[in-house]
């Protein structure tokens, strides 16, 4: 079946697979430290950062987008925790307040400047991986989609960071109090996790969009967590499950002639249901 794909379709498939794998790694740590909804919040509010970056720089350079989105992502996590602490608002409500506000600001800027900004709010919301092969860069005398290059970069970065700071990540995820008493800077480690997560989310926007990226962040991690109780197994399994579900989702979308991003999210949900039916009792 692989043979029947055109070169463009192959690039889409490869980009989606790399994207799912890159997202699954930080997803595991977010899920374990009960911050899954923060990922959802960050992916919404990144729109404000991207829109502001457009407004200030006037270009579609991914680097500016990345900086803007990371600022608004960190603002979401910091702002919601400060709001919860200072104004005695429940943490989930505070998160809801911050991300809906930033998302709205982003949509308003984009709608107001729609002519200058070649960007459609709907596009950012649910992503159009079908357009990936049209933005290419020349590397080693070959036209490679820009998205694929960035996502491969972030996948490698995630894997390297994860293996270098393995001990720190494990300790702060499972026992932040012990980590603090042992002298680790838990806050810095948490901020670093958020930083990397936001970067991964933003780079996945073109492929999967801001809401569907949450599916590839959390669902593979949740599946792996159902299957195993060992962190190492979970971290290895999650990207693999992500890759498998994105490949299945891609072929499903081809078969049904529908949105690739949407189908990938549906398939991750289906894989989760399968895992639930097989492993849910092993608490």
């Amino acid at each position, binding site marked *: 079946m692989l043979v029947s794909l055109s070169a463009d379709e192959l690039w889409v498939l490869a980009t989606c697979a790399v994207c799912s794998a890159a997202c699954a790694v930080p997803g595991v740590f977010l899920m374990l430290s009960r911050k899954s909804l923060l990922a959802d919040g960050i992916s919404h509010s990144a729109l404000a950062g991207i829109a502001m970056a457009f407004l200030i720089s006037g270009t579609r350079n991914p680097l500016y987008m990345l900086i803007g989105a990371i600022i608004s992502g960190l603002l979401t996590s910091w702002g919601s925790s400060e709001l919860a602490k200072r104004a005695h608002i429940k943490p989930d409500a505070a998160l*809801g307040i911050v991300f809906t506000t930033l998302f709205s600001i982003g949509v308003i800027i984009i709608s107001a400047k729609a002519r200058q900004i070649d960007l459609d709010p709907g596009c950012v919301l649910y992503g159009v991986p079908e357009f990936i092969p049209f933005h290419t860069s020349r590397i080693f005398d070959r036209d490679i989609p820009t998205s694929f290059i960035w996502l491969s970069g972030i996948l490698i970065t995630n894997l390297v960071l994860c293996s270098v700071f393995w001990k720190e990540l494990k300790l702060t995820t499972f026992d932040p109090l012990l980590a603090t008493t042992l002298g680790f800077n838990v806050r810095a480690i948490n901020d670093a996790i958020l930083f990397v997560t936001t970067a991964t989310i933003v780079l996945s926007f073109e492929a999967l969009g801001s809401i569907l990226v949450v599916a590839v962040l959390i669902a593979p991690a949740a599946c792996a967590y159902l299957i195993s109780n060992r962190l190492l197994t979970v971290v290895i399994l999650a990207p693999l499950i992500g890759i498998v579900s994105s490949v299945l989702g891609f072929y499903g979308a081809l078969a049904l002639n529908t949105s690739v991003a949407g189908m990938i999210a549906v398939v991750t949900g289906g894989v989760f249901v399968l895992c639930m039916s097989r492993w849910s009792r092993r608490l």
Partner: protein
Amino acid sequence: MDLSTNIVSYLTSFNTATVLVGTALLGFACGIIGAFTTLRDRALVGDCVAHASLPGICLAFLLLRDRSFLPLFCGAICSGLLSVWCISFIRSRSKIKSDSAIALTLSCFFGAGIALSRWIQNLPGGSAAGLDSFILGKAASLSYSDLATISFVALLTVSMTILFFKEFVLICFDRDFAAVQGYPVNLLEIFLMILMCLCVAAGLPAVGAVLVVALLIFPPVTARIWSERIRTVVVLSGILGALCCVCGVSLSAIIPSNYISGGLPTGPIIVVCAALLLSASLIAKALIRLINKPTNQLDQTTQSGDLC
């Protein structure tokens, strides 16, 4: 078109009254239900329900080939309730925590909605043009029959809240006590979720799936700043919700449309209004506290002195 002609045409248009009444009722109902769901730590379940309503809308459209609001509304409620059930199923049957369950359900249902709407678009003769407005909201397209549905939902929500006020307050503040007293706690909670789904589904055409949760969170949080009594919070939250909706809808209609191509979506403007209201309340409350601080301390010392 400039600002003044826009205001005139806005005030004289017949549709304006429908849209204003509809969104005000919607804001009121959402504010009231939001007060309970926020207290019960279910604020972001509303977000999940809103996103999850998309596949229901698409399926209803696919089955009935009807773009009017009522069938889409029913589809939205069905898939919203299904998503709430999924969350509680995942939470009770596995070691997955509730936040992951919410995020997972939300994104998978939304993905199904996107896939379905694209599929409908690619079908021969099918067009999902009307379905797109459910994502970011288009209050100006509210029709008279939509108003009937929204009014029905608002009336139902308000009357049920009055009827079950005591029970709702009890499960929000002390669920275990309610269970000990013999109240059907689970049924009451399901009932509250059903009311929330109704409100969310009614809010979809005006505010959109991504932002309707703001109507469930902002008004109760703002009301909570000004009062600590549940009755006052609930009523004030309803009023604030209505106010935000009316302001947002009016602003999005008045802002000149040649300045903004394609017109502003209503949802984001409503959210920005609500956010401004909330930050004004926070600042005002902080100022009041600052001014009152010395006298309060004095009161406390005199009181303790009296006790001695």
